[in-house]
Each structure stands twice: as C-alpha cells, then as structure tokens.
C-alpha cells in the first residue's frame, strides 16, 4: 500500500491568512478609506492570482476596476481575470498596462475591437469565451477566484451587503470565492446603519470601500418604441400568430432588441384581439423591459424573474410585487444565475436576433476585428437535453421534430431577423465571419452564438421557416434560403423546392398566416413613445434622461 503523500491540506486558508495579515499590518480594518484602496489591493492580491472583476452588461464594479488598473505592475502581474463582461476601458487597461495576461469571459460588447487587437498582438491570452451560466459553473470547478472585486448598493458597519435591484452576478461570485479561501472586496454606493435587507452576510465579505460615485449601470434593455418600424411590426405579427399562438407559448425569454420589443408592444393589442390573453406569454425570464409595461398593465403577464434590473424601472417593479421577485423591503432581487437556469430549463421558448446566419442555421454576432462574446444567448438559445417535465409547447415541438412517438419534447429557439441590416449588409450568408475570426484569433472553435441544430424557427419579413419539420440538410438549407429575401443567398434558392416547402407548411408567408402586410402599422403598438410607457406605468417608470425627449 502506498503511503499517503505528506502535504498541507489548507494552503488556500494559509494564503488567505497571510493576505489578511498583510492588510492588518498596514492598519486596514474592514472599512477601507477610499484613498487607500490601491494599498489594499497591492497587499491582498498576489502575482498569478485569479481575480474575478464583477461587471455585467448592467452593474459594474467600476471603481475597483479602475483602482486595480492603477496598481503597480511590479507588485501585481500575471493576473488571470475571470469576469462576465469586458465592458469598461479599465478592463482592457489591465492587460495593456501589464497587470493581467489571461482572460476567461462571456461578453465584451463595446471593448470588442480593443480586445481583438490585444489578442492579435499576443498581449492577452483568452482562455475561453463562455455563456454566463457556463462561466459561473467554472467558478465552482476550475476557475475559482482567489480574489473577487464586487459592487453592492450599501454596506453596514459589520460588512453585510445590500445589493439592491441589480443583484445580478454577485451571489454566484461571492459564493465561489468566499468558500474556497478567497478574498472578497466590495465597492459600495453608501454606508448605512441599517440595511433594507441583507443580500450577502458580513462573514462572506472581507473589505468594503465607499466608492467616490455610485457604480455605473447601463440602461441596456430600454428600447424607444418610437424607433420600431413597420417591418418589425409585421414580423412581430407573424411571430405571435405563427409561433406563440400555435404552440401556446406561456414561458419564455426575449432577447434584446427592437424586434422583440415590437412583440411585447403588440401583446395588449394584436395578441389580445386574437384572444391570446392568458394563453401566451404569462411567465418570463426577462430583464425588466420597459416595453413590457403595457402587457403587464393589461393583465397579460403573471410573473417575471430578472437577470438584473433596468435603469428607471425600480419604483414600477416595487409597486408590482405580484409580478416581480421582491424582498420584504420592497425592492427587487434579481439573480443572473437563477434566471439563466430558468431560461435553460423552465422556458419553452427563446426568441432573439443575430447579425449573421449561415445555411445550416448557425448564427453569430462576431464580425471581423471584434471579439463580441455571447452573454446568455447560447444558454437560453439551446435545447436542454436534461429537461424532463412536459408542457404543451415543448411536446408539440418535440413531435414535429422527432415524430408522433417522440420520447422527448423540444425547446423552441427562434431567430428573428430582417434579411438585411443597416447599410444593406445581408444577415444570411454562405459563410459566417466567425470562421475567419477563428483563424485570425487562433481559437479552437469559431465563435458561433447559437448552433443551427438548436434553432427551431426563423422569422424574417418574408415569412417563417419551421426547421423542426425539415427532414434533410437540403430541406433545411432551402427553408432558410426561402425566408432569406433578396439577399444573395435568398435569391440563390431552389424555387420549386421552396414552393414545395411552402405547400407542406414548413415555410409560411404572411398571407399563409392570414396576415395582410399592409395592416402592419405602428398604430398597432400599445405604446409608440417612451412617454407612452411612462403613461402606461401610471408615472412609476422614470426613464433615463437620454430617453426623455419631451
């Protein structure tokens, strides 16, 4: 028998102890003076650490990010960053200034071009691009942070944290860090004697710092109804009548964008006229979209669980606690990890948009010279093979895909796009830019957002393609070409085969659905401006100033 290896079994705890001792020796207690934050970071962070910098597409630990970027690269270097979103200039500064050299993330949005440049210069090594739930999962496996830098609304003297409506990723990050020998540092907007509620208990938090200004929040999910076009109204009508009604979709997630905002604004009008109230769109995994207010006020919606909050929606949410998840204090508690779980397993449909789609139905938002990442779309836009509970929508889709004796259902994954984007850029293409991006980045896989075999339907201004009913790769390809409009790949369709698909109901045009395109006017929108949304909310919705044009 082999003798057990002699080793210490609490190296992480010992390391944590030494870091806390270094901080204590510098005179730091739990509350860090704002002008000494860099001293603290240099005391507790070590070269080679894995550091989680909190920030999603809404809430950002911006002060801690800027402070980390201002630390000395002689003291702190070779950091391996794990973070949901690379969105702020300071996130990229970490790599440009030589503090960090490796990145595992999910979404990069506005910094996508700078990130691509750093990769090409080999100044950053990308571990992988993930979907949010996947990245959170790895926090508990092989990417557990040594240090987490997080954002909270308020702290009390003991270090208990109140996260406010933008709870978002914080619980997942803190849980992974605090229970594996890590250090948790929180920037807070205010110090209170008594918190409205405790979202993170004090003994999971090592240090708090009062940030000089409140953490940045992006109003990412606000869409001005004034910008919704008639073509988007037409596509929304087709989606409601041809998919929502046909499958009886009650539990769903909407992606971000004007296409789905149009659907939300047609629920109290067009969908109600079709008698669909109570039959579709009752339960949501969704950020609090202002454009959902008319549907909520019309009694369409029973429940909404949120990934994060949205600027200006807090008072409205508090006043609608039957709909939203709120604490005893009245404010919302969001949670990205749980909402993504709901989006994966408890939703019957995901509907979203993309920048490019190929003839196999693969879609990507990656374009040359930019590394954009995925966010939550690959998770919610996938058919989970672990699902076991049935619902009418799931069963109907499963039987269309696998036949009458199917032993499983199928999630509806709908891509809704106009065939051309702005400047006549075709959405439908023979080859995704993602393949060229893969080569230029030296990545192992092309950055495909939603795999074609997960897509069930494509909605364009030309109609709906039901890919579940296709029985061969050739049929799938022609079904996609058949709704690709006047794009080059659309014009290259096999007309006879497309007509055959139409006869079989695999492709359906507006007229096949009993919709006259000329009735697709903006008059159908329940709200035609942000001011209309405020009116629907009874004055509770307070839009950010950039959306106030009255």
């Amino acid at each position, binding site marked *: 028998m082999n003798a057990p290896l002699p080793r210490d079994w609490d190296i992480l705890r010992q390391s944590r102890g030494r870091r806390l001792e270094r901080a204590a020796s510098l005179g730091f207690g739990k509350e860090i003076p704002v002008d000494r934050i860099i001293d603290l970071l240099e005391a507790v962070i070590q070269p080679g650490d894995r550091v989680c910098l909190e920030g999603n597409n809404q809430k950002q630990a911006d002060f801690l990010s800027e402070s980390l970027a201002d630390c000395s690269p002689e003291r702190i270097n070779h950091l391996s960053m794990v973070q949901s979103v690379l969105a702020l200039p300071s996130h990229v500064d970490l790599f440009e200034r030589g503090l960090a050299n490796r990145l595992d993330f999910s979404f990069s949005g506005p910094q996508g071009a700078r990130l691509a440049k750093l990769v090409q210069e080999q100044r950053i090594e990308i571990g992988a691009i993930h979907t949010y739930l996947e990245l959170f999962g790895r926090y508990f496996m092989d990417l557990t942070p040594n240090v987490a830098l997080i954002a909270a609304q308020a702290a009390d003297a003991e270090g208990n944290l109140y996260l406010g409506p933008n709870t978002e990723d914080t619980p997942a990050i803190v849980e992974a860090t605090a229970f594996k020998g890590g250090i948790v540092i929180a920037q807070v907007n205010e110090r209170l004697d008594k918190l409205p509620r405790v979202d993170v208990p004090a003994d999971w938090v090592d240090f708090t710092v009062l940030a000089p200004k409140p953490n940045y929040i992006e109003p990412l999910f606000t869409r001005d109804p004034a910008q919704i076009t*008639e073509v988007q109204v037409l596509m929304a009508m087709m989606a409601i009548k041809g998919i929502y009604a046909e499958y009886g979709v009650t539990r769903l997630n909407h992606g971000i964008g004007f296409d789905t905002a149009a659907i939300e604004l047609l629920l109290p009008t067009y969908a109600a006229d079709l008698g669909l109230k109570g039959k579709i769109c009752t339960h949501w995994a969704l950020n609090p979209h202002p454009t959902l207010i008319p549907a909520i006020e019309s009694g369409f919606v029973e429940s909404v669980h949120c990934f994060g909050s949205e600027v200006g929606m807090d008072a409205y949410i508090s006043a609608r606690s039957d709909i939203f998840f709120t604490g005893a204090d009245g404010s919302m508690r969001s949670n990205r990890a749980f909402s993504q779980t709901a989006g994966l397993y408890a939703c019957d449909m995901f509907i979203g948009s993309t920048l490019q789609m190929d003839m196999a139905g693969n879609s990507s938002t990656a374009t040359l010279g930019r590394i954009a990442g995925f966010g939550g779309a690959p998770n919610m836009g996938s058919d989970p093979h672990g699902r076991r509970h049935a619902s009418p929508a799931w069963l109907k889709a499963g039987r269309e895909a696998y036949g009458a004796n199917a032993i499983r259902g199928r999630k509806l994954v709908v891509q809704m796009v106009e*065939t*051309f984007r*702005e400047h*006549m850029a075709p959405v439908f293409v023979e080859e995704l830019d993602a393949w060229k991006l893969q080569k230029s980045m030296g990545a192992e896989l092309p950055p495909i957002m939603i795999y074609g075999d997960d897509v069930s339907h494509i909605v364009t*201004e030309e109609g709906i393609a039901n890919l579940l009913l296709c029985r061969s790769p050739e049929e799938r390809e022609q079904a996609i070409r058949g709704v690709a*409009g*006047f794009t080059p790949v659309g014009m290259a369709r096999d007309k006879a085969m497309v007509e055959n698909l139409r006869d079989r109901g695999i492709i359906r045009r507006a007229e096949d659905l009993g919709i006259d*395109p*000329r009735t697709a006017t903006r008059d159908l929108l329940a709200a035609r401006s942000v001011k209309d949304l405020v009116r629907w909310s009874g004055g509770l919705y307070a839009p950010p100033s950039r959306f106030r044009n009255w």
Partner: protein
Amino acid sequence: METLDFRFDSKPVPRAADPALCGVVGSGNLEILVKPGIEPEACRVRIKTSARGFGDTWRAVLDSFATSHPAGGTVIAINDMGATPAVVTLRLAQALAEYQGGAL
C-alpha cells in the same frame, strides 16, 4: 445619386384612383408615387436612390412585386434613401392599395 429605370410585365391593375403617394424620404425609408401609365399590361418604374450599386437587387424586388401583384397600367416613381428590400416591398404594397382606392 443613381437613377434606375425598369419595365415589368404585370396583370392590369383592377381599379385606378387618383395618383397615390406613400412613405417619406428619410434615412432607411423611401417615397413611392403611383400614377396611371399608358401600357395596361406593364408597370414602369423610375428610382432615384442615394445608395449606388444595388440595381440587381432593385430588379429582383420589383420583379417579385410585379409578379405577385396586378400592377399593369401604372408608372411608379421612387425616391429612395437606403430603404431595405423589406421596407420597399411593404411600401409598394401600401402604395398600390392606396392607388386602388385605399381598400385593404
């Protein structure tokens, strides 16, 4: 600017009213004027567009329109500011309906 001229065979339009105007000249949009023409089984179209080099796409969009709608006996003038084919198709249908007396 680019000017494009097309002629398509099309079934005669059933009922002609006064000239019909539809849409606005704004970014991503277009203005369509439908007037009576002299050939009952043809639709003539003149396009003035800010986006150069899309003649083949215009031909395909208009050919599809003239095939799927009775538009013979009309002359159509279009002022375009970069409208997508989706918008063009919708506006053409609206303009023709207006020309036929506004019936939906």
